[in-house]
């Protein structure tokens, strides 16, 4: 494998409430290699956004972090505020879910991108502007000279997200973090923005950490994915394998929830229940067990550890059993509900069909 750009080891982030610390992210291990596109998947509240913000040093003030965050060999948790400022926007950049609010409404978009150049490079304003115009072109924006002088409200949602991407990429960071970059956009624009990120990844060689709640969206983009649930990584591995043969019951639910032509006239599959609130999470036992159809006694008594299965990792007490007798026992043991049953073993063609919207 190529060299590692970013690695998180036993990374934990806790919030304090009424005198008790509650973990929002626990013992997270994650690695991103140079030039790789990796996905971090999970539903709202699973801890994926705070993990991303932590890589930018922007975790909430009231939170406590521990473990190790290493970026290009440098320990992030040992950096002072001056070093953080040098690091942000040059080594690692981030784009956000809602490009309208993420841009300053009162400053011309060109200047907002230029600011990023001027902070990190010793160039004149004129040279910086030329760089900005070049990057705006590369981000697929038309008529860049005119757009440079526009305010965010004068642009469309897709254009605004392209501006955000141009802003993030202008200093050629080693890692781009994209926190649900297409959630606020039209479906047609979503595909364009995803394509743009892949293009940026190829042309500039930046690794990408793509955060999403939709496994289908990342299928064609990312090589590997980490599935998070309630602060834990529950499964990780190559995206194609995760989609084809999801092992963790939560991943199965996610795969089943990808809409596609097969869902016509059917109710969309969903996982019953919601992620428990921070202070309602069990300190012992599997975090998913209150929503899991495979739950047994051990799930409540013992916290499952990540187990290596082939080239994947999975956090489930029952995975080895299930692996063992997978083909035969699946009908009886599988999750309830039509969509979920059919998700357990699906053909490549079926996955392809489900992901057509990407």
């Amino acid at each position: 494998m190529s060299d590692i750009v970013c690695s998180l080891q036993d990374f934990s982030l806790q919030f304090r409430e009424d005198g008790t610390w509650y973990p929002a992210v626990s013992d997270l291990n994650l690695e991103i290699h140079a030039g790789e596109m990796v996905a971090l998947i999970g539903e709202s509240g699973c801890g994926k956004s705070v993990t991303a913000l932590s890589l930018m040093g922007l975790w909430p003030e009231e939170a406590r972090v521990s473990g190790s965050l290493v970026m290009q060999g440098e320990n992030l948790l040992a950096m002072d505020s001056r070093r953080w400022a040098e690091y942000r926007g040059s080594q690692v950049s981030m784009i956000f879910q809602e490009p309208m609010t993420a841009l300053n409404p009162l400053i011309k978009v060109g200047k907002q991108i230029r600011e990023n150049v001027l902070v990190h490079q010793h160039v004149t304003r004129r040279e910086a502007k030329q760089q900005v115009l070049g990057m705006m072109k590369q981000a697929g924006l038309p008529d860049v000279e005119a757009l440079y002088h526009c305010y965010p409200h004068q642009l469309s949602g897709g254009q605004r997200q392209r501006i955000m991407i141009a802003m993030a990429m202008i200093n050629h960071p080693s890692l781009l973090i994209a926190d649900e970059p297409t959630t606020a956009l039209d479906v047609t624009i979503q595909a364009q923005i995803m394509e743009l990120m892949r293009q940026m990844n190829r042309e500039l060689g930046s690794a990408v950490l793509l955060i999403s709640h939709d496994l289908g969206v990342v299928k064609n983009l990312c090589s590997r994915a980490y599935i998070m649930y309630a602060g834990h990584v529950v499964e990780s591995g190559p995206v194609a394998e995760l989609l084809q043969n999801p092992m963790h019951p939560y991943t199965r639910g996610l795969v089943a929830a990808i809409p596609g032509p097969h869902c016509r006239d059917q109710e969309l599959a969903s996982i019953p229940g919601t992620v428990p609130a921070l202070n309602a999470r069990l300190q012992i036992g599997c975090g998913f067990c209150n929503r899991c159809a495979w739950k047994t006694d051990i799930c409540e008594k013992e916290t499952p550890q990540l187990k290596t299965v082939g080239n994947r990792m999975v956090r489930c007490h029952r995975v080895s059993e299930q692996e063992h007798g997978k083909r035969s026992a699946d009908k009886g043991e599988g999750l309830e509900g039509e969509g979920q049953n059919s998700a357990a073993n699906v053909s490549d063609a079926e996955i392809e069909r489900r992901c057509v919207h990407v």
Partner: protein
Amino acid sequence: MIFYLKKAAGLLVTLILVSVITFGVFQILPGNPVYIILGVDADPAQAAALEKALGLDRPMAERYLDWIAGLFRGDLGMSYRYQQPVSELLSSALEVTGSLAVVTLVLTVLIGVPVGIWLAGHSHKKYSVIVSMLSQVSLSVPGFCMAVFLSSVFAVSLRWLPSMGFVSWSDSPVEWLRSLLLPSLSLALGSSSVLIRYVKVSVTNQQKQDYVRTAYSKGLKKTRVMYGHVVRNSLIPVITILGMTAADILGGSIIIENVFSMPGIGRLISVSITSRDLPLLQGLTLYLAVIVVVCNFVVDLIYSVVDPRIRLK
């Protein structure tokens, strides 16, 4: 461009309405000005002659147009009491009150904006409570108390500054400023306390916005985020308060001008009312209305410069 034309047209219409209302109010007021000039037991023949001389026997519309035509020539009639043109009285009073307004606004901004920003950044610290309390005190103490207090400390005891009067800028800029400092400070302490609260709330709200996170993620340092992004976006309420303060002071601070014996608009208002000087009062009323309208217009223009989104609406 269309935005500015629309705004200017709006201003014109408002001004015409203001002039009609001002004129109308003084027509329907009870009491004949002739008898105010001559006394209630004047000879009716004499009264009729004066009525003709003042042109009060002509139709109202005609007199209104006359009055408007006079306005354009800068002629607002003669003051009964001073026997001077109203326009001259107004312009000399405006020099005083205008100077007072300028210095007060500058002091208000110099006190209000930095303290407001500081409070927004230190609201969780204990010592910020003391600053909040001080601004609360200066807000609740009436202006004239503040004026008397400041005057007795800085003018009477320390003798640093004059306690009364006004020196024109053209005579001596230094003395001009010295003569204005105490009255301006008495006004500015109150208005800056209001401004502090607005700035604090506005900055606190802006700091929670998503674009601030973006600014940090670009690698900007805290001060740069504050002054390059947050403060500018917090300006809208600041401009509103300043516009209101400006209109307020330009409209004459009757009490402060009296305490410091400044011959400004406020003094003129109190004199014109006590002496029933109708032409002067009419001129002042028009002036006050115009000041409010113009201040609002200027505030609108500044809004549109600060926030480009406003031009769209």
